[in-house]
């Protein structure tokens, strides 16, 4: 059995707002092995980024983790002090942000911004050592060494994104979270960045959490995946299994609504309606209002929810599994 690097257990997180509590993450559990890439997919507002922020303990001030644990290499991150967290962030777990185009300070050279992070975590390194390190990071992500002396505005979108990946790798993290790293890029650049992330991940044996709304990217990038809907994981398991035999109605709809350039042209299905409001959590199946064929049972709010194992390693919500 391979080594588990990160284990999230029954994580519950809500935002306290003036209109009530917004349950953004509900009973989320998953674990990631060393060198594994794990995909998190779902539409906007389903809680993907809230999970990522909880992992880094970077959630907004009004966010409260009510229960659950996040164990990174034997250490529970929930409840650590700010000083202890500083050591874990970037060193243990780092993130490639969604708006990487705007992640840079415009008046500081790109290389200096990476040096700042390294200096914080390895105070004993000499300046030359750090320069060599940055140069080798840039080489790894396909940038020229001289890029470190350039300002962010001198770089194209794709180059900035590559530099952000170098920044995320700068303190040798065990886990890297990539939160929609290619959404703002066009297809050709997206393809190059995906290749780069995959290459680096294999080279360094990193554990990767890849967050995206694009199921095609998840298919190419990940070994295992989880589908999120309204704050819950509704299906998780090996990516191959989920694509070949999806068990949850939402997963099936996601797969059927993605156009492809390969194979016969097929009629795509649309997912009507909107995700439910997460204010004051509703009991029962949250997907039933949008489900294409819900039974009377599904609409009943007392129906038990929660993942059950449908085949080894492949879990789906019992409501949808029992439906058929």
């Amino acid at each position, binding site marked *: 059995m391979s080594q588990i690097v990160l284990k999230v257990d029954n994580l519950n997180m809500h935002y306290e707002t003036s209109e009530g509590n917004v349950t953004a993450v509900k009973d989320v559990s998953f674990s990631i092995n060393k060198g594994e890439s794990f995909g998190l997919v779902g539409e906007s507002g389903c809680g993907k980024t809230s999970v990522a922020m909880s992992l880094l303990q970077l959630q907004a001030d009004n966010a409260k983790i009510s229960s659950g644990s996040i164990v990174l290499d034997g250490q529970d991150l929930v409840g650590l002090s700010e000083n202890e967290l500083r050591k874990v962030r970037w060193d243990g777990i780092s993130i490639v942000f969604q708006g990487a185009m705007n992640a840079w300070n415009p008046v500081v050279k790109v290389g200096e911004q990476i040096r700042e992070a390294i200096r914080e975590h390895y105070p004993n390194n000499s300046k030359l050592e750090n320069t060599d390190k940055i140069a080798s990071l840039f080489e790894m992500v396909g940038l020229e060494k001289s890029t470190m002396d350039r300002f962010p505005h001198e770089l194209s979108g794709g180059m900035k994104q590559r530099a952000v990946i170098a920044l995320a790798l700068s303190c040798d993290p065990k886990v890297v979270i990539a939160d929609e790293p290619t959404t703002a890029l066009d297809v050709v*650049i997206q393809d190059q960045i995906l290749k780069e992330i995959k290459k680096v991940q294999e080279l360094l044996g990193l554990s990767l959490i890849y967050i995206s709304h*694009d199921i095609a990217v998840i298919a190419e990038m990940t070994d295992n995946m989880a589908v999120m809907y309204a704050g819950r994981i509704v299906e998780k398991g090996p990516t191959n299994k989920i694509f070949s035999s999806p068990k949850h109605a939402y997963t099936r709809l996601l797969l059927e*609504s993605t156009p492809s*350039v390969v194979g016969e042209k097929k009629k795509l299905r649309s997912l009507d309606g909107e995700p439910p409001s997460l204010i004051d959590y509703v009991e029962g199946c949250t997907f039933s209002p949008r489900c294409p064929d819900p039974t009377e049972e599904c609409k009943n709010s007392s129906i038990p929810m929660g993942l059950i194992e449908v085949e080894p390693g492949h879990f789906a919500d019992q409501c949808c599994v029992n439906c058929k």
Partner: protein
Amino acid sequence: MSKNLIEVTNLEKYFEISSGMFGRNKATVKAVDGISFSIPFGESLGLVGQSGCGKTTTARALSLLDPKTGGDVNFYNQETESMQSIDELDDVELKKFRRNIQMIFQDPYESLNPRWTIKDIILEPLNIHNIGELKDREEAVVEILKTVGLTPPENYLPRYPHELSGGQRQRVSIARTLIMKPKFVICDEPTSMLDVSIRISIMDLMLNLAKDLEVSYLYITHDLAVARYMCNRIAVMFNGKIVEIAETEELLKNPIHPYTKRLISSIPVPDPTYDRVVYDLDYDELDSIIAKDTENIGMIDIGNEHFVATHDVKGLL
């Protein structure tokens, strides 16, 4: 073959840029460099390519937002039942022409005036063109909201854009566009800002409206998978030029130009067992081939209405 709605020949849009002291160093950016295509009635053409290849510049030149610097654009005139060049239009005709040609923008968050209600937004084009009495206009607004699936309309009329979701806003943009009953709609990545789940319903809505109202689209996108779903034909653009144009399925099954191959092979496939091999292409090399070959700028038909730029077709066929 059916009648053409629009014929574009050697469309050019050059920008003068100046740099240096007092702007003494002049240069020309050829954003759109001699492209030609035609769109028959009720058909839609996809214009695909990477960022910065001139897709949006083409759209703006065709919709007369930015005047073109060269080439001919001919549009079918329903009154005279013949093709008419847009250069020959006088002011009155031009205003009429503008009714027939509308544009849907990429960003539904920024293309709607935040201080206007949905009713004001959709009513504005009717007021500008002075169509009908006020009562008729208001009825038309209610009718069009039903058409784009914002029902019941009374719930939407007094609301402001910030109260709507991204998908609903894009429906409002479509309603504003279609209320003029245009024959030709230019869509600049209308679904790229939307979530996967609503993307398909917006695309289906546009396809159904095209059928019902006989609208032709010029559909601009960088995603060939989306273009495949929406368009009858696809034109591939590279650095201001069209390098290949063909019927959609023909283009995807039988791409000839190396850039088309590159573009198709860059799209992620929603199947984890599929082994995608990216077609390797050196852009600088392709660029220099095109730049050197100034004489040979036409397109050749290789059969099935499949046109490929002639510059480096030799050796590849």
